[in-house]
């Protein structure tokens, strides 16, 4: 069907469901929706709808299903993998009006919220009860909980407190046919399959998330952070393993390399040591006794691992300053070049030295500088490749460089994405991480929820055809992937 025909068919029907101001169809109104946080990819959607009730979402889904029109859900649009990238013939379903915190139960330690509620707003609302919501992606002031569920978002506290999947209890979804289903419960388990796990991180491919109940945790009585400097990044890597081997599970354990330190220091003046090759920020939290016991132990382990200096933030102000440098690392690096490209591979920590060496080699080969920030505690790396999109071919070169980093992560026993999702960005690297049978299984899962493929088409899981076409690019050790597929 032609785009105009689709529009003419469903626009009048949508106007029966939604008030006029909840439908955007003019070019200038559609522009703000043409990309998410991965702004290198842009596409204007056919229409944007902004429903304000679950019933409206159900009607929209029924209508689009009836006309076989694709639907792409969108939260705050902060995603970094293009998961909310529109298609020219699709309806973009914005959850922006679902902003209410419906209930906080301090005794049960739960919050029932609408999907458009911002991540940080949950913790702010829970604060008077001494509670908070643990997963804290760096975009938490803007990103929504619905998007967090769709991407299984992480943050700097995952090693101790888990990802989104560990911190939600119940979801209501609207299926592609417009049916409302409840998944999970306020109890600790539910009969049947763990659909809560399947929905979390499914990138809008299986259903529209319309209601969420999250777990809340008691706010730590105390949090303290140590900054350790190293003259060698590999010593910093070993220090991470030694901390964990000592039986310490830090609330956050972050690493930055020299370029990232410099960028952050120039930007924030966090008092980072500019002569260090790497720094580690090691945060311990919990009750006062626990933290006071563990801090000297952690300092001892860091020094024994070769730290040239350790500094304990003397108060909450200094602690916030140490963290501000880390949390501003992306924009800080962004000041060093016109553009940067953020990767999200995860590796077993023991592979850190090898991967860093590989990145350094690739950086020379592609003549593009890289700053490394790293959730060291859980092996999730964010190499930031600096480039200039105005120089012809440099974006392509950057993407190729990034793809090679991700392939190295897979080869090291890791994954192409730790927390940003596959979206459109890493769809080709899925062919490297998964075999044909596994990709086929993903397609079968998708078909169980959405047989016609109308929810967020083209994202997260590549077609076997796409992988076969890419085969030539990814010859590994002389072996062509997917040799079982016919080629012409």
């Amino acid at each position, binding site marked *: 069907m032609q785009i105009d025909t689709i529009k003419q068919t469903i626009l009048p029907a949508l106007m029966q469901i939604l008030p006029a101001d909840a439908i955007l169809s003019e070019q200038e109104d559609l522009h703000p929706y043409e990309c998410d946080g991965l702004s290198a990819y842009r596409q204007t959607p056919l229409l944007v709808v902004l429903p304000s009730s679950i019933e409206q979402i159900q009607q929209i889904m029924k209508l689009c299903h009836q006309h076989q029109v694709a639907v792409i859900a969108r939260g705050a649009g902060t995603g970094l993998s293009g998961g909310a990238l529109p298609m020219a013939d699709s309806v973009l379903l914005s959850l922006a009006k679902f902003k209410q915190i419906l209930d906080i139960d301090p*005794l*049960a330690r739960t919050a029932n919220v609408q999907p458009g509620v911002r991540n940080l707003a949950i913790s702010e609302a829970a604060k008077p*009860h001494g*509670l908070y919501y643990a997963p804290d992606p760096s975009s938490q002031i803007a990103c929504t909980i619905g998007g967090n569920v769709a991407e*299984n978002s992480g943050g700097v506290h995952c090693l101790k407190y888990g*990802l989104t999947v*560990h911190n939600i209890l119940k979801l209501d979804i609207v299926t592609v046919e417009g049916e409302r*289903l*409840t998944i999970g419960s306020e*109890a*600790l*388990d539910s*009969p*049947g*399959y*763990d*659909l809560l*796990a*399947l929905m*979390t991180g*499914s990138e809008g491919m299986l259903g529209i998330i319309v209601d969420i109940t999250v777990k809340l945790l*008691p706010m730590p009585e105390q949090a303290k952070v140590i900054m350790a400097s190293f003259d060698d990044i590999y010593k910093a890597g070993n220090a991470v*393993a030694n901390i*964990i*081997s000592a*039986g*310490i*599970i830090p609330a956050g354990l972050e690493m930055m390399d020299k370029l990232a330190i410099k960028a952050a220091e120039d930007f924030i003046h966090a008092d980072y040591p500019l002569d260090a090759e790497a720094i580690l920020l090691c945060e311990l939290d919990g*009750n006062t*006794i*626990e933290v006071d*016991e563990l801090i000297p132990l952690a300092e001892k382990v860091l020094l024994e691992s070769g730290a040239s200096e350790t500094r304990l933030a003397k108060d909450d102000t200094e602690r916030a300053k140490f963290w501000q440098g880390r949390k501003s690392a992306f924009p800080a690096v962004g000041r060093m070049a016109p553009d940067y490209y953020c990767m999200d591979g*995860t*590796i*077993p*920590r*023991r592979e850190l030295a090898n991967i860093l060496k590989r990145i350094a080699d690739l950086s020379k080969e592609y003549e593009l500088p890289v700053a490394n920030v790293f959730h060291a*505690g*859980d*092996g*999730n790396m964010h190499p930031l490749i600096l480039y200039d999109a105005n120089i012809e071919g440099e974006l392509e070169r950057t993407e190729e460089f990034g793809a090679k980093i991700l392939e190295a992560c897979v080869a090291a*026993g*890791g*994954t*192409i*994405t*730790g927390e940003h*999702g*596959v979206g459109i960005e890493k769809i080709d690297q899925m062919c490297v991480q*998964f075999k044909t*049978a*596994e990709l086929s*299984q*993903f397609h079968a*899962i998708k*078909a*169980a*929820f959405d047989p016609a493929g109308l929810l967020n088409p083209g994202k*997260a*899981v590549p077609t076997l055809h796409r992988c076969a076409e890419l085969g030539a690019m990814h010859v590994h050790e002389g072996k062509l992937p997917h040799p079982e597929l016919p080629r012409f």
Partner: protein
Amino acid sequence: MNNLTNDLQAQILAAYKNKTHCRIEGGNSKAFIGNAPPDSQASINISTAEHTGIISYDASELVITARSGTTLHEIKQALAENNQSLPFEPPSFADSATIGGTIACNLSGPARAYSGAARDFVLGSRIINGKGDDMQFGGQVMKNVAGYDASRLMAGAYGTLGLILEVSLKVLPLAQTEITIKSQQHINSAIKNINALSAQNWPISASVYLDGHLYIRLNSSEMNCLSASQAISQKINATEIADSKAFWTSITEQQHAFFDTSQSIARLSLPATAEDIEPGGEQLIEWGGALRWLKTDLPIQQLRDTARTLGGHVTAYKNYPQATEYFQPLAPGMHSLHQRLNKAFDPAGILNPGRLYKEL
């Protein structure tokens, strides 16, 4: 160490071809969980018991990967040597219990409400689906969002989506000290107290309400445990019990006298703060109120209706010959979604058919 991957795959491939129903079995320690297999249907047993061995374990990575037939005992021992443990404290029920069975049943012990369930610690799994495809989902890293979370989906699927070949689990350091305190309480105050305490920074790792007493376990450093024990004991008038470890083993392994009965035992999973449903029978309450074992003569349907109203569900755990479904039936939309999802993994319907639900 024994790798039967090829054998197991060949057995499932043959069964797929011939549409033979398969009963997947590990240590056969949890055969009582789930619907009994139908007598009429011809089926073969596929055993993972000899598919054994810890494939990798690096304590500083906090990850262990083992073949499904590896006994829980062997895994717990290997971890204990490095001062680590499976944080979800799985029960064994028998020495033969395997890690594959534990994950397939998503079994967690007393620590569940405080550390998480078996499913929370699954990082990756290698499985054979009902078509005989050998597949790896997830991996050995803490953070991994590539593809749908099919590895965690295996937890609690009772082998109906695939035979688990290998599983990678996150592990955590063992706490230095353990103290258990006990306080006489009315059931509803016990539920309220344990939830209120859980909203604060105490190192609580388990709770049980039994015979009119609330038991709270603390796990942390010695100083932290002692200080918490003192403070909580003052608040709720509690005293320390003598043999903490033995007490919690009796709860985890269901060796406590409560479970020694020919009466029906229902497993109620409820929102933790739900008030006592006053069932008239003896109860043992775990997980801060979220898990309630009930010795009862009440019809299962009546209990299920009550639980549903409260936002929970009921499993016909033991001695329920009259229950038509072992697990609480699903709402119609969820049931058909389960059937489609099951078909996506097992199109011929040969893997443990009926164990989870009669029509699955």
